């Protein structure tokens, strides 16, 4: 008798439910717990106060990324609070027997960059971290979501979490992306459509031809910003692209275990006929490079578009828009392209991987950044940094006039000294343009690495297609097929 068709989310959920008392949330087993310095100290203190140990240190891994400086790592850390936090994660890991990829380690980096690159992130797993961008790991067909510090303590103590089952939301991206359009543009377009609370209570599954055509790193960019649409987790069913990425990575299964794992992973994709609580479809052919104009990631337009005014939005959203434009100092009706910039930030768990740096370098190679502009390129991990240097990308950035840094979250969250000054305009490949996010009074435009790099050359927000020598699609008669767009 055929079982009811299930989505990939339901398969992973069902497998990990340990117990489920009537009236209580399910107890969900956690396969991998990622820990960083900012949200964990109080959880370790809680464990100590209860006299508990870390239940599964072998399924727990830690790094330092948020408050760590990206300057010369041999210098002492000037910020005493950050230094203390970094000492504490190291001490906590030592005391509780947790593997720590800390300062000086060649495998240190942003937690959502190192999980995949080390092969820790695998299909079918449940993965949590005290960071909302844990959704990144969903790119592998894992159920991955951010948790608070109380939940970190719960996972450290029990290797489980109490969870109510979320609803399912299919986001299908059909067609094929045009040149100069990438994963960041997909997710910014989605959030502009559903709003930053549009996915609340749901787990998103991304499907469709445009998603299947993405590389693993591009899939990570899409899943990473799922939380900016309000959904705690977003996932993409694993396929040959996933397996090819994972094979041979340090913590990926090997030999017979690899074949067994792949067989198991092949059973994960949603069954034919599986249903979702909600589905929307986006035409990938029609997408353009996107950029935000406001103070949340849902306030985005195509880079060829105009800054909306009160008449362009629902009555209920007018106050929000007016407040956002006042903070940003922008006039409704004006083109977003051409907006003056002070800073360009290329990096973060959204767009700090090697393909992102290659994309930015493809624009900056042989060019100079605009006069007076500060351009910061921050690799997502030390391994990404090393790879970029072996390809000469650091030289491309330096020759263009950009700063090349050690890895970390850096100006995405502005905890480590890398920040916008009050009033400055920055275009950023990161994930949040909230007021003050990148520094007190700083004003952020979110965009792809291509758009950020093109804007670095001109000093104003720029459609990358104008520098890539490709016509915007609306004007194109036939689409070039040889442009490396991502």
């Amino acid at each position: 008798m055929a079982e009811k068709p299930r989505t990939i989310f339901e398969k992973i959920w069902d497998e990990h439910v340990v117990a489920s008392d009537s009236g209580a949330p399910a107890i969900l087993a956690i396969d991998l717990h990622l820990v960083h310095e900012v949200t964990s100290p109080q959880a370790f203190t809680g464990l100590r106060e209860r006299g508990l140990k870390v239940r599964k240190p072998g399924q727990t891994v830690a790094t330092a990324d948020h408050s760590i400086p990206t300057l010369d790592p041999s210098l002492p850390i000037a910020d005493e609070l950050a230094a203390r936090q970094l000492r504490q994660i190291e001490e906590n890991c030592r005391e509780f027997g947790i593997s720590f990829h800390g300062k000086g380690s060649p495998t240190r980096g942003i937690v959502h960059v190192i999980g995949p690159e080390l092969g820790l992130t695998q299909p079918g797993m449940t993965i949590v971290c005290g960071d909302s961008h844990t959704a990144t790991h969903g790119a592998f067909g894992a159920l991955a979501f951010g948790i608070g510090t109380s939940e970190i303590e719960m996972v450290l103590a029990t290797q489980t979490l109490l969870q109510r089952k979320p609803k399912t939301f299919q986001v299908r991206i059909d067609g094929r992306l045009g040149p100069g359009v990438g994963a960041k543009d997909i997710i910014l377009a989605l959030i502009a459509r559903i709003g930053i609370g549009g996915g609340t209570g749901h787990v998103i599954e991304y499907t469709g031809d445009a998603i299947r055509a993405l590389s693993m790193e591009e899939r990570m960019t899409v899943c990473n910003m799922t939380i900016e649409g309000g959904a705690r987790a977003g996932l993409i069913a694993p396929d040959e692209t996933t397996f090819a990425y994972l094979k041979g990575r340090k913590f990926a299964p090997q030999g017979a275990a690899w074949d067994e794992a792949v067989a198991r992973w092949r059973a994960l994709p949603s069954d034919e006929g599986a249903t979702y609580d909600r589905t929307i479809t986006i035409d990938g052919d029609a997408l353009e490079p996107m950029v935000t104009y406001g103070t949340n990631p849902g306030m985005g337009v195509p880079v060829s578009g105009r800054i909306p005014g009160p008449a362009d939005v629902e009555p209920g959203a007018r106050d929000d828009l007016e407040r956002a434009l006042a903070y940003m100092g922008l006039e409704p009706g004006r083109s977003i392209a051409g907006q003056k910039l002070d800073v360009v930030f290329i990096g973060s768990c959204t767009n700090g991987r090697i393909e992102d740096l290659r994309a930015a370098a493809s624009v900056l190679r042989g060019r100079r950044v605009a006069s007076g502009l500060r351009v910061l390129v921050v690799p997502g991990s030390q391994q990404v940094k090393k790879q970029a240097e072996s390809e000469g990308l650091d030289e491309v950035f330096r020759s263009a006039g950009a700063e090349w840094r050690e890895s970390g979250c850096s100006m995405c969250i502005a905890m480590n000294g890398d920040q916008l000054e009050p009033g400055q305009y920055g275009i950023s490949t990161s994930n949040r343009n909230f007021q003050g996010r990148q520094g007190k009074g700083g004003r952020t435009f979110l965009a792809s690495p291509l758009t950020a790099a093109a804007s670095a050359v001109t000093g104003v927000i720029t459609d990358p297609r104008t520098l890539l020598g490709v016509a915007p699609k609306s004007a194109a008669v036939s689409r070039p097929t040889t442009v490396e767009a991502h």
Partner: protein
Amino acid sequence: MPEPFVTTTSRVISIPRANIDTDQICPARFLKITDKNGLADALFFDWRFTPDGQKRQPPSFIDEPVNAGRQILLVGDNFGAGSSREHAPWALRAWGVRAIVSTSFADIFRGNALKNALLPIVVSAERHAALTALVVADPDGEWSVDLEAQKVTLPGGNSFAFELDPFARAMILAGTDEIGYVLSKLPAIEAWEATHPARLDTREGALSR
């Protein structure tokens, strides 16, 4: 571990804005602490102070003497959007907030709030509009939030019921948290683990610090 919580009676602060994100509630630079102390001062910091650290003039609503000690917030849709930082509910609780009324809350914030006995009370858009009008008409009226009865009583005696996750409600009423409950289920966890061997060991070949 939180104290048991049953009721609060307080005047209300209305913040008629949607999508108030965690970077507004508690900016990231206040996340460098390694304990939970001092966060009352961080609450809505950038709304209260200019980038060079001066108190804004006129002062933000949060610094108006009339709002001191108010324990109930009435806020716009999707409160708590953004990060997983539990510092957001810690800051709200440290300042004195016990209950927040909105049409919706961001998922992670909602969970974090419940773990800190901070009640996220969801109302319909119609009720929200009526409540907002009520605070305008009667800015110093006291509301009573009764978690046991799951009821908010308004000035004049009108009241409305609200839903809250029954498990979280029981935890908050008892002043306990969830770890004890889950630890009581260890046999079930061990049984699950026996049939689901770990897929990796993060310590194997882990590189030196």
